[in-house]
């Protein structure tokens, strides 16, 4: 009878530790992933976003308007970033995602207020992401009551008592019912494409290297550009199939509105797919084997979910997190997809989301071509 041998068991434990020590990428994952997650969840992600960009459309300044805006600012939810000339400009700013809120004081607002005509103050909200807007909208109601109480004293006390002497109309645009899936499902397109495109190209090239077939491929008269582009074309098709599946589900299962053009969406998606394939190729020239390619993909994937505005409001994150998020193509792609489907964005409004993707693609492609080993050295 051979019993459990402690020395044999210990031999295996030692061997595992030695191998773990040599595998730098796994080691980096063990240490790096928890740190990144802690930092992102602990500091970057905020489900009660504050300091949301807000614009004002105002034709006249009065003590009351100043006081109301000051109260909005005091609430912490609104950050005034622009003063816009008219309603048209306001809609454009909302469509482009430059601002989340527009506070619109109609002409003669103050005069009507003083006459007791109960004028209406309009707050327009980009409600694409219900989570980003809801707390701020709730704060508006509270704030209105308190401003009314504070400002209308003395001769105006009659205005301050009872119901507020003005109306606040909150106009939720793009996702008026505040349905989460209208925001999540289009965003999911970015997540799914990032994951599959980066990982599959990463694997496709490291697989050749791991199995030794790369040497054979390189000894044949193919040019690097033929090899790289030839290898990624099938994945472009896979990406387009995935988009189609998600779009069908969005339309018929989740009833996401399709305000904009689906054709435009496919074109934008091609840019995004191309950018991700370049990332995959670059990772594959860093990774030594298929396992490392998968691990590196996870590293790249995480910020693409957490700080791209997919799960948590982008505007609610601190500046440094927004800066990192602004370097990830998924951030722009999700903005573009939501812009097309929910807001009906056209090329003009999409351009601010498209050029960063193209720039990212060019930078990564340059890096990929430099690092791609045409020769084995």
């Amino acid at each position, binding site marked *: 009878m051979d019993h459990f041998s402690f020395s044999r068991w210990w031999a295996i434990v030692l061997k595992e530790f030695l191998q773990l020590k040599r595998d730098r990428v796994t080691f980096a994952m063990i240490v790096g992933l928890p740190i990144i997650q802690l930092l992102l969840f602990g500091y970057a992600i905020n489900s009660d976003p504050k300091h949301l960009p807000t614009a004002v459309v105002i034709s006249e300044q009065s003590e009351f308007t100043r006081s109301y805006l000051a109260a909005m600012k005091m609430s912490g939810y609104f950050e005034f970033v622009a003063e816009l000339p008219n309603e048209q400009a306001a809609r454009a700013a909302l469509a482009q995602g430059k601002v989340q809120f527009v506070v619109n004081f109609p002409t003669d607002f103050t005069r009507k207020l003083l006459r007791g005509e109960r004028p209406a103050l309009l707050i327009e909200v980009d409600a694409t992401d219900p989570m980003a807007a809801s707390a701020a909208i709730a704060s508006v109601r509270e704030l209105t009551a308190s401003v009314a109480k504070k400002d209308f004293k003395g001769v105006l006390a009659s205005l301050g008592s009872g119901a507020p002497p003005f109306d606040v109309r909150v106009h939720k645009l793009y996702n008026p019912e505040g349905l989460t899936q209208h925001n999540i499902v289009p965003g999911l397109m970015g997540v799914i494409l990032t994951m599959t495109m980066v990982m599959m190209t990463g694997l496709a090239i490291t697989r050749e290297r791991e199995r*030794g077939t790369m*040497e054979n491929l390189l*000894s*044949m*008269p193919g040019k690097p550009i033929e090899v790289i582009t030839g290898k990624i074309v099938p994945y472009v098709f896979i990406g387009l199939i995935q988009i189609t599946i998600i779009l069908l589900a969005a339309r018929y299962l989740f009833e996401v509105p399709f305000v904009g053009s689906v054709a435009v969406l496919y074109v934008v998606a091609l840019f995004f797919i191309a950018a991700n394939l370049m990332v995959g190729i670059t990772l594959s020239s860093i990774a030594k084997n298929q396992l490392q390619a998968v691990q590196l993909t996870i590293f790249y994937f995480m910020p693409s979910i957490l700080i791209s505005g997919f799960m948590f409001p982008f505007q609610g994150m601190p500046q440094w997190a927004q800066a990192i998020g602004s370097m990830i193509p998924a951030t722009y792609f999700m903005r573009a997809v939501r812009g097309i489907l929910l807001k009906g964005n056209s090329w003009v409004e999409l351009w601010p989301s498209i050029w960063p993707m193209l720039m990212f693609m060019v930078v990564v492609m340059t890096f990929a071509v430099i690092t791609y080993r045409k*020769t*084995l*050295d």
Partner: protein
Amino acid sequence: MNSQSEDDPAIDVRGLNKHFGDKHVVNDLSLRANRGEILGFLGPNGSGKTTSIRMMCGLLTPDSGSGICLGYDIRRESEQIKRRVGYMTQRFSFWEDLTIRENLDFVARMYKMASRREAVDQVLEGLNLTARSTQLAGSLSGGWKQRLALAACMLHKPELLLLDEPTAGVDPKARREFWEELYALAARGISILVSTHYMDEAERCHKLAYIAYGKLMARGTAQEIIDSQGLTTWAVTGRDLPAIAAKLRGEPGVEQIAAFGSALHVTSRDATALDAALRHAMIGTSWHIEPAQTGLEDVFIHLMNTSSDNYGAR
């Protein structure tokens, strides 16, 4: 060799150097192979054979040195070289998840062959694999994989074959058939550079080049290499061979002792000293000694022992 092939060698490289990190893998290698010749490329493991072959076919760029392969510059014209060279990698490097036909078809397309289908059919016929052409390459046995690999790298009718240990792990019958094929190719004027560890294969080559630790140690025909080292070998037979070996080891004049079946081959550069050492050691024993032919293996082990190991202790 006629003068034409002397002027137009298949391979002519001079002063090739390659470093990987701080390892000097190929050290000032100069090598020449004539057309229509089988050049055996020998050397211990890690001696830089594979790296040298990769530099010759343009897969690796040498750190320094120059050379031509089939009349093309190995640094600048690797595309031209790749089109005319068939390179068989040390490890089976065709796609195991493709069928035999799909593999051949892919290779034919990469070389832009005009009559692709016919060429593939011909190869399958020649290999006797027509019936199994839809089988996955990964399911073939070692010998069949090697035949498929040779057929695939011959598909585009190259002028030069670079074969990196093509017969490692292949049984003797398959090896013999493989060599018959190589002779047939050489007879058709195809130049072949083949690296190997097998002595019987080395003896089959027209010319040999021996490298150790990245340096070319000897070249010529098998006989020329044997003669050039001026070694004397005695075969010692007796009852307790390990004891004899232990006694002889370290004796002045004894450089190398190797067991060959029931005899010990004792080799030295200094015939007189070896003679004296053997006579001295034999006193009072029942050993039997007789002069033996110095073989290629004796010479190679001698070369290996005398070459300096520039990697330090391994």
